[in-house]
């Protein structure tokens, strides 16, 4: 386990030390895996998106102006990469495929309200606009504040609140439809 700071590792990686960058990846990978998996809808594609985002960040390390906040900077790149991926996929008109491994891996908390299954929620989440899905995940799954969300997305707080609200409304409608079937 390395004790080097983010800034030290960023400096080493920017000088070409790929192993230093691998340490940064190991430090942040788990934090962003859940967001990527939920944004793109399946595990394999999320891994590709994360790989792509991390490679992009390696290329752009020279533009990381505040290496101490590398994690937040990386989060912005991951978010953008997820958005780009979702848009491209929509253009290809590929439907979101359920990834069985993800569902099997997800533990079921018996204390959680049993009205919605994970599959129901995944289905409903996939129906949201990407902007609403992103805002909902950041707010309610990643527990970010609106200030943090605004910093990452570059979107104003009022607009983010509206997206979360609309996401909740739409999710509620979709889940009610599922239950009515």
């Amino acid at each position, binding site marked *: 386990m390395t004790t080097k700071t983010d800034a030290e590792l960023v400096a080493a990686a920017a000088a070409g030390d790929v192993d230093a960058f691998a340490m940064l990846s190991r430090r942040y990978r788990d934090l962003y895996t*859940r967001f990527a998996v939920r944004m793109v809808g399946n595990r394999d594609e999320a891994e590709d998106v994360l790989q792509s985002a991390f490679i992009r960040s390696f290329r752009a390390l020279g533009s990381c102006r505040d290496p101490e906040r590398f994690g937040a900077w990386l989060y912005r790149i991951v978010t953008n990469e997820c958005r780009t991926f979702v848009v491209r996929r929509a253009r290809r008109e590929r439907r979101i495929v359920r990834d069985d491994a993800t569902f099997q891996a*997800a533990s079921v908390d018996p204390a959680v309200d049993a009205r919605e299954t994970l599959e129901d929620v995944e289905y409903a989440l996939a129906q949201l606009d990407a902007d609403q899905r992103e805002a909902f995940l950041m707010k309610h799954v990643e527990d970010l504040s609106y200030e943090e969300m605004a910093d990452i997305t570059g979107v104003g707080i009022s607009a983010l609140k509206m997206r979360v609200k609309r996401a909740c409304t739409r999710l509620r409608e979709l889940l009610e439809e599922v239950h009515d079937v």
Partner: protein
Amino acid sequence: MSEREYDDEEFGKRVARRLRSVEPFDDRFEVDLVAAIRADRATEPNVAVRARPLAPAWWRTPLTLHLSPLAGLAIAASLTAIVSLGTFVATRSQVTAPAPTVAQVTHDTVNVVRFVFVGQAKTVSLVGDFNAWGAEPVSLTPVGTNGTWTASVPLPSGRHEYAFIVDGRRWVADPFAPSTSDEFNTSSSIITVGS
């Protein structure tokens, strides 16, 4: 906070609980990442080893040799010399070429392509025009126990040729991809990346 806002907040939290659990990726992620970054560097226009430096078409042709132990030793010594020469050439190229730095990178898109090989093997690597046909081979990582190997590689948009090297010696074209042949009648596969 209005009743409706409170409901939304509670609803959001309740639904989100379902979404919190995701199994993290294992350390294979970094193995793939490091390999992809190194392969990415090999595609940089500033790296001199980019284009088939050793024109290794001769070793791409599958060969089966039957040798006595003594002859085997002699040939092994020769091969060691050839490999050393290859290393020297590559090293010299890297020294004399401008060092690839982040500032010199001009790509604005990344296409990460996942290559999958299925078959029994001890090692599988990926060679192609994007890594100078093995100047910096990409090792595939075994996934599970059913003989599946994968590697994720960033590729520039466009047409690329590739093949797998199985157990360090067997050249295998992808049976599920369009193929092409070189002047030695060795088949490679074709992938087109990007729109």
